[in-house]
């Protein structure tokens, strides 16, 4: 029988706010045990008598994502308490949104193998993170509450993905969207972007939803993909053996490349949700919508292309498609440029002046980016356009052009000033050229002999010497013509 996977993703992203979700503590992502519990207060430690006060910045950030996803943003939403006992949960409950999420529905386009797909979303809601646990060798745990109360957005898709590749492509796109919006750093290694897929398989053509399993603690896209592929195979094998899939939470065992159950869930956990009495309903005003919209607009990506302004919603799928359809960029180059907005903007602005897109791209990718990795530099689109033009008019050879670029980068002077400072604009007169060619011919009997024997290519060696003696200022084609004239070729 042929099977297909049914995958939904639950993603927890840290919102990029200065303060925690319900208290005034700064959000600081610390890694070392030595820095543990530095950024805490009675509220995020769940001391007796403390009350949560909602951080409105997190609301605006969540709204920006809602706008991006074309989702419904609830003008009136409520917070709820979700109860369970665990040492990383200071209050014994998490303040989250349950029946009325801030963001409902929506969709996101993403690319799989260059093809555009759309994922439908279920909801996105505000909540708070738990403390970080450091597991000790003696079986005890140490708790770091720096992370407790950090604003989280939980973003849940409908079960829309049919393969690991699709799910990963969506997650990568969502991560880009969050970063470009400035809503989250969305850094997987640092735990500010956590992905929990749930997955079932079914015979192709069926529309049933079978028992699903969740995979937790996945810390890279590669691991998500591997674990999903392994889990799909595991479930198919179970059904093929007339077995049953049991509802459970799994983790990824890298060593044996398989998913392993963490615990069997016999019943749904009872979180005893009820409305958070300490927080009044979240009511959004027109001003909130205006602010979220304004900040969303300013995060949009604007490009000049063919004299027209093109606007792109924050994200990479549409932009990638646009580049592949309209420019000579390769997919790998697009990926590089989408991660490097400065370079991307430089390229498009240079192209608007020069029109030679591929050449501009070469300068940006091969000269600008490696140098900018070392220093800020002073390159403007005009520099790139000018250098491309100088090369096109053969005013500079490629070595000279690189020197000019380096000088512009370092000092910010115009390309023409750099050319004259380097002396690349001094022309070699016709008589000087004749004299130098004669000199070279006189000095290289052996090469001349070769040429006379019919090895005409050897004339290139003479040209090299002419260029050297003129310190690159001679025009190579003119010099070659003069050499040939004197040699009677």
């Amino acid at each position: 029988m042929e099977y297909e996977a049914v995958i939904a993703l639950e993603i927890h992203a840290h919102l990029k706010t200065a303060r925690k979700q319900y208290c005034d503590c700064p959000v600081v992502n610390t890694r070392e045990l030595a820095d543990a519990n530095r950024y805490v207060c009675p509220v995020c430690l769940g001391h007796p008598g403390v009350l949560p006060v909602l951080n409105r910045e997190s609301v605006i950030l969540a709204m920006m994502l809602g706008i991006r996803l074309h989702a419904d943003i609830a003008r009136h939403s409520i917070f709820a308490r979700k109860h369970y006992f665990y040492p990383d949960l200071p209050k014994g409950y998490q303040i989250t949104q349950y029946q009325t999420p801030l963001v409902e529905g929506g969709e996101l386009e993403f690319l799989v193998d260059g093809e555009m797909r759309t994922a439908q979303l279920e909801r996105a809601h505000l909540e708070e993170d738990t403390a970080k646990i450091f597991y000790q060798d003696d079986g005890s745990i140490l708790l770091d509450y720096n992370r407790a109360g950090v604003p989280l957005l939980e973003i849940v898709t409908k079960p829309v993905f049919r393969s690991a590749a699709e799910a990963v492509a969506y997650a990568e796109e969502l991560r880009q969207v969050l970063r470009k919006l400035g809503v989250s750093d969305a850094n997987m290694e640092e735990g500010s972007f956590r992905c929990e897929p749930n997955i079932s398989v079914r015979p192709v053509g069926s529309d049933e939803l079978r028992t699903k399993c969740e995979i937790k603690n996945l810390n890279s896209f590669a691991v998500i993909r591997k674990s999903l592929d392994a889990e799909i195979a595991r479930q198919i094998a179970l059904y093929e053996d007339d077995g049953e899939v049991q509802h459970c939470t799994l983790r990824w065992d890298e060593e044996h490349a398989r998913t392993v159950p963490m615990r069997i869930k016999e019943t749904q956990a009872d979180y005893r949700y009820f409305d958070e009495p300490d927080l009044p309903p979240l009511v959004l005003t027109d001003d909130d919508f205006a602010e979220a919209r304004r900040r969303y607009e300013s995060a949009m990506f604007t490009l000049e292309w063919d004299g027209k302004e093109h606007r792109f919603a924050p994200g990479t799928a549409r932009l990638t498609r646009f580049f592949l359809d309209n420019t000579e960029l390769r997919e790998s180059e697009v990926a590089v440029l989408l991660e490097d907005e400065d370079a991307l903007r430089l390229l498009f602005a240079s192209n608007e002046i020069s029109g030679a897109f591929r050449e501009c791209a070469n300068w940006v990718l091969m000269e600008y980016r490696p140098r900018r990795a070392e220093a800020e530099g002073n390159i403007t689109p005009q520099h790139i356009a000018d250098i491309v033009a100088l090369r096109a008019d053969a005013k500079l050879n490629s070595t000279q052009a690189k020197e000019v670029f380096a000088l512009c980068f370092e000092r910010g002077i115009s390309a023409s000033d750099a050319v004259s400072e380097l002396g690349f604009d001094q022309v070699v007169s016709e008589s000087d050229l004749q004299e130098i060619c004669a000199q070279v011919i006189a000095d290289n009997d052996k090469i001349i002999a070769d040429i006379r024997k019919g090895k005409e290519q050897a004339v290139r060696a003479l040209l090299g010497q002419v260029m050297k003696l003129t310190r690159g200022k001679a025009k190579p084609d003119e010099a070659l013509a003069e050499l040939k004239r004197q040699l009677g070729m």
Partner: protein
Amino acid sequence: MKELLTLTAHELMAKFAAGEVAPEEFYALQMRFARHIEPKVRSFLTLAEDGVSPPDVAARDGALWGVPVSIKDLLTTTDFPTTAGSRILEGYAPPYDATAVKLLRDAGNYFTGKTNLDEFGMGSSTENSAYFPTHNPWDLARVPGGSSGGSAASVAALQSVVSLGTDTGGSVRQPAGFCGVVGFLPTYGYVSRNGLIAFASSLDHVGMLARDVTDIALMMNTVGRPDKLDATSQAPADADYLAEMNDRESVAGCTVGVINQMMDPKLVSQDVLVACEVAIRVLENAGCGVKRVDLAGVERLLPCYYILCPAEASSNLARYDGIRYGAGFPADISRTLQQHYRAVRSPGFGEEVRRRILLGTYVLSAGYAEAYYNQARRVRHAITEGIAEMFEGVDFLLLPTSPTTAFGLGERIDDPVKMYAADICTVTANLASTPAISLPGGLSPDGMPIGIQFIAPQKHDGRLLALARLYEEHAGTGYSVPPLVAEELAGFEE
């Protein structure tokens, strides 16, 4: 000088202003008498020691500047341990002051100590304190009421001039009634709950106890302020409760509704009924109209309250796990997590608290939440609307504070349902988030105080104080020193 101990706060402040006694001098006297009578009454879990917490008495503009205040041990204080009357917080030193405490501190008030209470506020007699019961200063064999029993006793027994309490279902008004002092429940959100150790968050109010209405207005002028740390705070920024209390125009010819169902002889004792009828005549003599009104669904008040309250309590008390503070901290790592929770929480909570956690967990559980918790929320909504509707026809409501006078220590402790019944007259105001006040309404034939309660619409706190002041003036049944306390005072050597 010891006769100064019987004064109200505003009378005392007049003495301060006239230079007849200095606040620090009075505070020292107050503490000496508080300690003197404490073994009999046992109002305090922690009594201030000499030299503890000298307030910044330079701040002379405080409404109650220099007046000693006792604080219910359910409000956090940085200079006293805060236990909530529970073993699970034994020795807990809060890292912050409750907002109301801080406002009093900043206004130059002295603190006499932390008063006894039913554990986490759960009870109506202060017998549920994990430490010891408090005795009623009018009859040491009886309870002072609860849960702010220590606060009420401390004011009645001249151990404090005023007190800060909390009221979730009557916890300020009922002990005030039992001890013959004034107890005020402000509108929900009028005093910040920051630092009020949560019992049932949507019903919890900070309230206050004093010997007369004027002192309540002065307390409100100090602590009835908006607070950014409480998202449900809705206090007007610049209210002057003293001025509103003195605004006779606001209550001239007002109509007071008497709730028939709360005057039912099957529910309310004869002595209390008589006192209420007397109070009605006092109001009529003061020029108020009196109207008999019906409150629908009285039989649903207690069930509704005793579902919502444990539900919220089971959630609020989940944080006491001994991992960050309190009993069990630091955790013994030789135990498993389950063993740790059991070792900390089972002995940490008293029987009544455990009962409510279990009850609350049950009514919130999947499959039961709809029948209990959600239904109770709908009933609460209906009660709130019913009360609002009643206020279309009357300006205030009058009812007893409690169905009976103070009952005997140990009398109801083994019968929770009978204990819960003591709350029938007080839960309405909490469910409807309205202000309410309990005033001394005379003594029963056996010499126990009877509380008369008034309820006003939400946010009519100042006007409620005006009515209370009017009643106080005409009733002539204000605070008097309990005989036993008078005796102690007579034998007290300064």
